[in-house]
């Protein structure tokens, strides 16, 4: 008898596939005339999205304020590096992630007192709150509308090799390594008993409670984890761009990451990566076709609507389900 979700049957195959993909991704991009930097950007959004998938895809919590943590992690990390408070890039990222997680615990402890649409609106309110805090009262630390330029890129000495993140491919490798780490951890989380309870909460929170689980605590931990992922991704964004943008806090950012997760497929962990890829590449690709350059977002909006209405599994989710059916038929 197999215990646990479908994914449990896969052993390490999914991790292996993702690792393989990460290695060949730059080459794939090259084939289509896109640069490695685009891949890095997609990975950062994909990492942000892993957190969103944890709370939305796995726990059923729709939050419109995740950008608050993306921005918090980003600006904390950027500040630490720019002001040379923490010499190590990884150290700054760790602290940025931790602060974002604390922010997540704080916001979650309040927002999770409500459910459904009130919860969604609370997260939206907090998201906006963070955005305007960045914009005005905290502008000494955030540069307000201008953001924070001058975030240094790291160079790592790994024994005989050097990982030079000032180069495109070096930065990609750095981000890809962190993405893989984040993905690996997320896979452990969702396949754990904790992850099983999250799924139950998504399906029927009242019953999950009725059979003995402290649902509010599970939600809070999940929410905090999602904030951590957002914060880590935000920190990487600043390092990647050499500049931390205030838009990281915007409601548009919160909305976009949800769109990406839905398009890619909620509850798959790789869904956000797929969604981010579709979003970014479509935007990039259509730029070059003059006639329809301006409507990439319109197309994505329509795709989003179609998927929500009839294909809740999203692109990756649908592909996985299709694959599962093929294997079952053998």
């Amino acid at each position, binding site marked *: 008898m197999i215990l646990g979700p479908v994914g449990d049957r896969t052993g390490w195959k999914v991790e292996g596939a993702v690792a393989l993909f990460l290695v060949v991704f730059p080459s794939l991009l090259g084939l289509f005339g896109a640069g490695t930097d685009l891949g890095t950007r997609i990975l950062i959004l994909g990492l942000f999205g892993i957190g969103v998938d944890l709370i939305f895809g796995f726990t059923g919590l729709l939050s419109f304020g995740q950008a608050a943590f993306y921005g918090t992690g980003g600006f904390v990390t950027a500040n630490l590096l720019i002001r040379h408070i923490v010499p190590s890039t990884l150290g700054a990222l760790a602290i940025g992630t931790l602060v974002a997680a604390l922010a997540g615990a704080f916001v979650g402890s309040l927002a999770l007192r409500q459910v459904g649409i009130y919860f969604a609106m609370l997260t939206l309110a907090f998201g906006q709150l963070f955005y305007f805090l960045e914009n005005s009262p905290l502008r000494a630390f955030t540069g307000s509308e201008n953001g924070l330029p001058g975030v240094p890129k790291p160079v790592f000495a790994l024994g005989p090799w050097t990982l030079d993140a000032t180069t495109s491919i070096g930065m990609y490798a750095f981000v890809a390594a962190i993405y893989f780490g984040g993905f690996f951890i997320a896979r452990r989380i969702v396949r*754990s008993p904790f*992850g099983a309870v999250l799924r139950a909460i998504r399906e029927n929170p009242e019953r999950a409670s009725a*059979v*003995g689980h402290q649902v509010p605590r599970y939600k809070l931990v999940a929410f905090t984890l999602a904030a951590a992922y957002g914060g880590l991704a935000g920190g990487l964004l600043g390092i990647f761009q050499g500049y931390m943008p205030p838009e990281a806090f915007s409601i548009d950012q919160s909305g976009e990451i949800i769109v990406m997760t839905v398009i890619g497929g909620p509850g798959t962990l790789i869904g956000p990566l797929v969604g981010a890829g579709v979003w970014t590449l479509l935007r990039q690709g259509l730029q070059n076709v003059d006639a329809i350059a301006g409507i990439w977002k319109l197309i994505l909006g329509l795709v989003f609507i179609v998927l929500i209405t009839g294909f809740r599994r999203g692109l990756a989710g649908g592909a996985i389900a299709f694959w599962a059916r093929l294997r079952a038929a053998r």
Partner: protein
Amino acid sequence: MTALLEARELTKRFGGLTAVDRASLTVDEGTITALIGPNGAGKSTFFKLLAGEIEPTAGEVVFRGRHITGLGVARVCRLGIGKSHQITQIFPNLTVTENLVIPALAARRGSFRADVFASLRRVDGLADLVARTLAEIGLTDRADVRAGALAYGEKRRLEIGLALATQPQLLLLDEPAAGMSPAETAGTVALIQRLRAGVTIVIVEHDMDVVFGLADRIMVMQNGATIAYGTPAEIRADARVREAYLGGADE
């Protein structure tokens, strides 16, 4: 026999409506108690009070000598009361096995653990509990089916299974045979008979054959209040009960 559960003068008011009116019940360990009464008598509300789903306006619930009023449904479950609902409440997109894993996880590992890196395989006794429950409710050959795709009768059995997998000492069954065919109902009765050895049961039912066939004690409610309590024979002979049902349900 010791009193496992005591409901003392439970009252529940919703605004102007008194759904449960000073209803009391003592349940002895190892017995099957049936709760009957006409529609709107307050049986389901009374059940919800017992399970901790809602809080009483007055009165209290004592379980194994411990006051459990107001503890909330998760705590009450962990203390040993499991409930199967009148309206099926399963986890539709999880398989049957995965459905049973959920209550079993709480039973084997507690109501909350942030064990984000642990493995399901290593939860002590989990596989065993799930397998036993599957066998108990007769869904072993449907173990990997998506719960939402089950037939109605199978869903009802899973519903009971979810309560069973919490390893309760007291099992509350709210109309377990609701909507079932005669054959399925017989199967449910057989299941309850098998279960009685290990768990005390309180059951709400409308089917009088089921009730009189299973129960050691019967509690009759009407308009939120208890109008009779006793052995099946006593209840059968009770004039108030007959009146409440306006011509009687069986015989």
